[in-house]
């Protein structure tokens, strides 16, 4: 199986993050083509649509369609924001793009911005990404020196300013409107939608927020052609996807593989199960996606439609593998503790509900559970789901619902007996 074809294509090179390496791989050629008018903005959108590129941040919204929401000819400032917050637990893919292939992200942002008529772009990184911030800054300096970013690029009169900024490490800032608030200098709290960022975004101006992996894929799609990209994957899920495999595997790692690769093969890449134990369950798309029992996963393929057919989603590609020693009650408590900590606190169901869920799970773990608590957990999750300002509500509800759906016996056992069914007394 071929790996590292798109976003990670510089990884095998000697100095992967350098300007020269990227240039050698035909880097910035598409951007120059656009600048010189050999390609039209509408061509870019058509190509991205034809390539079947879907948002790689988690929601999987078609990138080409999203870009077409902005009318580039409408007067006034527009913004592009690259979401490099990568805060979903289990996900660790964008940081390597920024570490080892920052120029491709810069070119992708420049192309996307120009396509939508935005002259300013922000690359928003999470607070912990110090190394990534530095490599992006270094690359930006090189690109500016080469005259590819800045004012009046290559004498064409086209402007594109790129600003790398670094957050403070909150999970919720990965939500696109919370990110806009944060860039504006406010608390990162999601905005109510509508209006969507395409109409009322950063500083009230039309804005598009895209994931790092989506943006970094664009130069390759345009360089090698949408057909090439699409054919890498399946009919419904074009291209490649980066999966961050963590948990009970022998060699946890990040792998860029074609869409539609069987999960079995991905597990193989990660060295198989740790100590060759059985695969009990997998969260395939970051902690907010639904958990899938291992035996179902082992027959599934890693694509949008493949994951949908097993009742979950590909999300951000954060594959968390759990072996048969894992206590599902503990695992869920760990996930929910994270969400309780990270709720922004503005809307009621999330602020109050996550704490209630966590207190319930904490008490079950302490042996103070009641058999009714299992249904109560599902009930609380149902009351959060769909009632919040942003998708955080779903991110909390789905793990609870799916963990209990597939492993109810473990929860009931813990409540009844006060200790874990898997681990014993």
């Amino acid at each position, binding site marked *: 199986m071929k790996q590292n074809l798109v976003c990670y294509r510089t990884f095998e090179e000697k100095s992967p993050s350098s300007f020269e390496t990227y240039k050698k791989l035909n880097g910035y050629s598409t951007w120059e083509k656009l600048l010189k008018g050999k390609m039209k903005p509408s061509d870019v959108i058509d190509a991205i649509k034809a390539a079947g590129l879907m948002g790689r941040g988690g929601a999987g919204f078609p990138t080409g369609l999203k870009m077409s929401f902005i009318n580039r000819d409408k007067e006034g400032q527009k913004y592009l924001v690259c979401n490099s917050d990568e805060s979903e637990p289990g996900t660790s893919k964008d940081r390597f793009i920024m570490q080892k292939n920052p120029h491709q992200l810069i070119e992708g942002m420049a192309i996307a911005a120009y396509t939508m008529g935005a002259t300013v772009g922000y690359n928003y990184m999470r607070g912990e990404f110090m190394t990534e911030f530095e490599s992006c800054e270094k690359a930006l300096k090189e690109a500016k020196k080469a005259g590819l970013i800045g004012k009046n690029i290559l004498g064409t009169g086209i402007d594109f300013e790129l600003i790398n900024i670094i957050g403070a490490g909150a999970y919720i800032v990965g939500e696109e409107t919370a990110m806009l608030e944060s860039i504006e200098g406010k608390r990162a709290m999601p905005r*109510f939608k509508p209006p969507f960022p395409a109409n009322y975004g950063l500083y009230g101006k039309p804005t598009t927020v895209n994931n790092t992996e989506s943006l970094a894929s664009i130069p390759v799609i345009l360089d090698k052609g949408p057909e090439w990209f699409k054919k890498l994957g399946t009919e419904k899920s074009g291209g490649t996807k980066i999966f961050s495999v963590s948990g009970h595997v022998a060699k946890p790692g990040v792998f860029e593989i074609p869409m539609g690769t069987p999960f079995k093969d991905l597990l193989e890449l990660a060295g198989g199960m740790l100590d060759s134990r059985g695969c009990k369950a997998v969260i395939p798309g970051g902690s907010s996606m639904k958990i899938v029992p291992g035996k179902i996963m082992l027959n599934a393929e890693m694509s949008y439609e493949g994951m949908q057919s097993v009742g979950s989603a590909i999300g951000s590609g954060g594959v968390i593998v759990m072996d048969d020693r894992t206590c599902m009650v503990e695992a869920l408590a760990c996930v929910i503790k994270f969400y309780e900590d990270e709720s922004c*606190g503005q809307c009621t169901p999330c602020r*109050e509900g996550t704490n209630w869920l966590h207190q319930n799970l904490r008490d079950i773990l302490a042996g103070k559970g009641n058999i009714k608590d299992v249904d109560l957990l599902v009930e609380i999750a149902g009351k959060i789901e769909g009632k919040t300002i942003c998708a955080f509500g779903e991110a909390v509800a789905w793990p609870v619902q799916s963990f209990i759906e597939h492993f109810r016996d473990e929860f009931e056992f813990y409540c009844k007996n006060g200790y874990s069914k898997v681990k014993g007394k």
Partner: protein
Amino acid sequence: MSQIEEKITLFIDDQCIKCSPGTTIIEAADSVGIYIPRFCYHEKLSVVASCRMCLVEVEKAPKTLPACATPVANDMHVYTRSQKARQSQKAVMEFLLINHPLDCPICDQGGECELQDIAMGYGEGVSKFTKDKRVVYDENLGPLVETDMTRCIHCTRCVRFGTEIAGIEELGALKRGNHMNIGTYLKKGLKSELSGNVIDICPVGALTSKPYRFHGRSWGFSQHMSIGPHDCVGSNTYIHSINNGNNLDIMRVVPRKNDRVNETWLSDRDRFSYEGIQHKKRLTHPLVKKNGQWKEVSWAHVISYIADCLKQVTDSKGGQKIAALAHPSSTCEEFYLLQKLFRQLGSNNLDFRLKESDFKDQYQINYTTNLSGSFEDIEQSRCITLIGANTRNDQPMLNHRIRKSVLSGADCIRIDSHMSPMNFKTTHDFLTPHDEWSSNLAQLLHAVLDIKKQPVPKSIQIHKPTDDITKLAKTICKHKSGYIFVGKHIMHHDNASSMRAIIQTIAKETNHTITFISEGANAVGGAKMGMLPYLGKTIGLDKEAIFKNTMSILWLHQLDPEHDMTHYTEVKNKLEKSFVISCNAYDSDELRSYADVIIPACTFAEMSGTFINLLGQQQRFHAALPPLGDSKAGWKIIAAIAQTMQLNSFNYPHSQAVVDEFNSNHFEFNYQENTLPETIDNGNGHHSWVSFDHPFNVDGITRHAKALQEVAKEDDWIIRINSHVANYYGIDHDGAATLSFGTQNIQVFVIIDELIANKTIVVGKEIATLLPKNCKIELKSNHDK
């Protein structure tokens, strides 16, 4: 095919509603009386859609949607009580209640709590939540607002109020998730002059009134419509009282919505002054001084005693030897009858302009129709000039309108000798030394005339405008119209007449509306009722002249010269030489030291009356409480004295009869044309002092309101100077200092403040009462090495 006329038709609970595009579901529902529960939504604040209580079912939408943030669309079908909607609403209610302490029995909000009300309809009888509840530490927000933050449901109305209405961000959300709480972070309390409004908008008992705490339960109160008695806007209020068995006790004052006056807001002064109304210092019996001893007497006795005194003096010396001064917050009825009594006795020595001293131009100033149009018109204005006016302190509700105009892009220019931070961004702030007001205003006029290419009069010519002043003039002239508000720093100035003449000329040249901001609740009423010396057949003495001469009898109506007048030492000297009849609500040692007869008068809350605000709107109010002790309404006392003296037509069965009479009996104001002064004072170059009176000291009621005084007293012994002046006196930081004048020394606290003009020393109220007029003062730091 006009797009503007287009209406949207939608159905809420199958009821057909037509409304304009952009309306939200909650507004549409409210307009036809369909109730949707809500917490974070407030009609005057921005929408955040965070409480999620107003979730409703919208056909074709997969999730329930917040009615407060969802705009209506054509043919939309909304269900506010469907199973799906109820499920969402009940879920949110359950979440809100799990961490709420449910301590309604000991919560002041009980009975008027939005959470309590909505929980009745959407909550369960028993909570499923059996875990640990959240506890939040309380913060001291100062003497006015009490906190119980454990009750907070995080609706953030108070936070948005600070940002959007009060204009200072004092409260904010700290921490996140379940630990999120509302606080000031700096822990210095609330400083906004509108801070009390957070009590009203808080849907639960997290923010309640500190003075009112544990005093009563709202369901036992009687509610009386009233008017705020301290400023020229006349905010509409409700007075709440409770029957304690023998009497009615005042409980609190809350705003009464009137979009044309105060909207839904109320200034802290109007809200918390009620504590002064049933104060233990209130006068309850008529008192007469006999041989240096005060004696309680009957009403019959005191009325005939006063009638005799007045008769004796007017018979022997004529009306010129008697005078009456009234507080500008007196009612129209009091003003009208007081001047009627004195004019019938042959005296035109009448005034309410207690702190002013320069009346040379009084025939050129229109005291009656100050501001035409409406308060909403101010919001539409593009240019507002504040000259010597600190509207934020003195007229909070007027300032609220000015703020709105500035937020919508108007220019605001401030010219003053001492300023304090505004709650909006001004275009220019120009500081003029207290002594150089006239010459700076003359320069401004010069610059305006230059821009308008008009000839510059001789007296103005020598005042060549500086660049800064030309900038101001350019901004003012840029606008075809606007407002110029002239405040008390001008009105109280020794040179007020020439300053006003210059400002009137500027207003005329630039086509800006000039408004002299009146003091008290009813200064416009005072003028309209004829309480000015020049409205009779002959011209009487103004306030300044009254004190230059010595009156045989001086009637003081609802005023304490110590606080309501300037240069008290000089004033007291004259008071001691006159027979003083004080019609006052409050007792004090000072009052007993100069008065000869004290008659206990009611406050506005215990009588009916009329106030006329800056716009000329007549607002009538009725008694909310019975008179305290033996006190009586001022107008009744005056009428009784007149009747005892057998004067003509003082027979009024009720106050409405007085209103009917003055409404059909207008005074003629023959104004003279504004003329510029021939010479303009240039200042003497010395440092001069000007007194700063806290806005909570405007009248007897506020001076006796405990919580307000806790705030106000902080300023009493403070001196503010800028760093130049501080340097001059060798003071390099804030701290204790000694102020000396003549042979006296007093201890003060100096604050270095760059919003004070050069050569200007702003002294606190207590200091100012000690200083003789125009005395030279010296300052010395107590921290010399």
